[in-house]
């Protein structure tokens, strides 16, 4: 059964971002966290990096309108700020394929319905070059078949089964899933000595 929130196949133009260990401070500097909403974050994504590096992919005309980010290892490390995936999403990113992801960033993306999938670095580097060469061609992230496609190349992708299931069934918004068990939550709480008063 498919719902509007299901994430089965995500297609869009790619944007390659070279480098490993890109932290969430770099994705969205802390001064943009001074707000009570996430609105308007999209225009500030990678703001300082883009100023320091005019050739930054997020500055390039060729990649405007892209929605699939292709990144290296340990992407999104550091601060837990959800502002980072919020900024990426508001810029237009709908899916990320990378060498690996920092776990809090990965969890935040999942909670927003943005799939983060991993692939071998050799494939990632190939895809980054291919997307740079042909920025108008679409990348397909197929969560059902666990593969990414670009032109005639098929790249195996990985994503933990549980998260893949949430995305495929559209249950990545966890609140509803967590509430399904009803009073079982309180039952577990009452068994915990520190909640029961030791």
């Amino acid at each position, binding site marked *: 059964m498919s719902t509007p929130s299901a994430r089965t196949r995500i297609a869009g133009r790619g944007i390659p971002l070279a480098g490993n260990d890109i932290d969430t401070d770099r994705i969205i500097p802390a001064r943009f966290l001074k707000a009570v909403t996430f609105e308007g974050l999209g225009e500030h994504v990678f703001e*300082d990096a883009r100023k320091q590096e005019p050739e930054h992919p997020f500055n390039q005309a060729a990649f405007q309108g892209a929605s699939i980010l292709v990144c290296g290892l*340990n992407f999104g*490390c*550091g601060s837990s700020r*959800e502002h980072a995936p919020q900024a990426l999403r508001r810029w237009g990113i709908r899916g990320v394929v990378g060498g690996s992801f920092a*776990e*809090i960033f990965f969890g*935040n993306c999942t909670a927003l319905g943005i799939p983060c999938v991993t692939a071998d670095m050799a494939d990632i580097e190939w895809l980054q070059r291919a997307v740079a060469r042909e920025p108008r061609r679409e990348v397909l992230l197929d969560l059902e078949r666990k593969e990414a496609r670009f032109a005639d190349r098929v790249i195996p992708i990985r994503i933990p089964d549980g998260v893949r299931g949430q995305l495929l069934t559209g249950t990545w918004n966890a609140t509803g899933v967590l509430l399904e068990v009803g009073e079982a939550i309180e039952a577990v709480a009452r*068994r915990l000595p*520190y909640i029961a008063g030791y």
Partner: protein
Amino acid sequence: MAKTLLDKVWEAHTVRALPSGQTQLLIGLHLIHEVTSPQAFQMLREMGLRVRMPARTFATVDHIVPTASQQRPFGDAVAEEMTVHLVRGCQEFGIPLFDLDSGRQGIVHVIGPELGLTQPGMTIACGDSHTSTHGAVGAIAFGIGTTQVRDVLATQCLLMAKPKLRQIRVEGKLTRGVYAKDVILAIIQRLGVKGGVGYAYEYAGSTLEAMTMEERLTVCNMSIEGGARCGYVNPDQTTVDYLRGRPYAPQGTAFDRAVVWWRSMATDLDARFDDVVRLEADRIQPVVTWGINPGQSVGVEERIPEPASAPESERATWREALGFMDFKAGQAIAGTKIDVAFIGSCTNARLSDLRAAAEVARGRQVAKGVRALVVPGSQAVAKAAEAEGLHEIFRAAGFEWRKAGCSMCLGMNEDKLRGREVCASSSNRNFIGRQGSPTGRTLLMSPAMVAAAAIAGAVADVRAMLR
């Protein structure tokens, strides 16, 4: 079968195992602050949900509070607005708040343990990556984002995959002038900033066993810098002694019953780990970072390494780091000129950290041209430090003595680097732009090493200054 603390805590908090392999995990203690949490209140309002267990969440203000004057309304209108949003949300949903007038405000990861909220065997979540800190007491504690804060508020649960477990054994005695900060920086240097992805870290061995609770908090705090979402130390007599008498710790006979449960949650002697790593304490020297992630570090007697000596996957980042920092491979780290010295943060702003820095600052003067700040981790730390005159030692030496908050660790308030300034910092991240200037540079080190750098005006070996 022998179990680890991670196994036991996970089992005790499992509401259900989903067919997908994920666990619906009950969160026993939830901590919130003004930067990543008020948006979650709005999400609850929009979904028409209430807070499921308001007594299991506690709030404070730390990230954007000014540290020079904390008079309300704040001079910064946005900081004031964010604080108002948190206060209103706490009132509306019935969540206790340690506000500025409570005497209990401070950095969320300092006040949790300090108030005895953080206890062994708990699951803890907070919208802040340094939640790993609380593992020092023997809890499983992890950072989450705002949408997950909403989930915890609405359901007291998170959907989680159980991590693998790596035991990190540090054995032997630390030499004088080498601190818990150096231990965790050495661990991250050894395992890398992504070595911990997918793992929880159990810190063990005679060095950890000999550490005070405050030292263990420093070690667990930076688990996330090693890529591990959580890290812990098994509860022992040090844990019990630390918690006894704290305001939110159990009292009287309940405390004695608690101790039995806490000890039962420790890893069994013959438990197995997915990986075990060993470090020798006596080989660790004061560590200083030279780059743009916390794994790029050297001992204070060493030289900045050549990118060619790095693993291949690290070389590009090393070259980028040298370029950004304007350092050359082969250059000695000692003698690197600094402009700012920052003693503070959830890593190193507890009383013992301030004592260690004051020991170095006592009777000396901050070098001309160096801006030096001491920002205590909490109001209680500030009060205790003032009671023993540490603030006077710092002031006499030329340090500014501030009020509690996150301050220059992340530069969200007025405390920021300017331009290309180089900062010797007791905080946890040397990322590009981290301390509030997009081009500012950070050298991470222990609080005593920061004090030494402030006095020398350059990176210096604190061991030469300790009498």
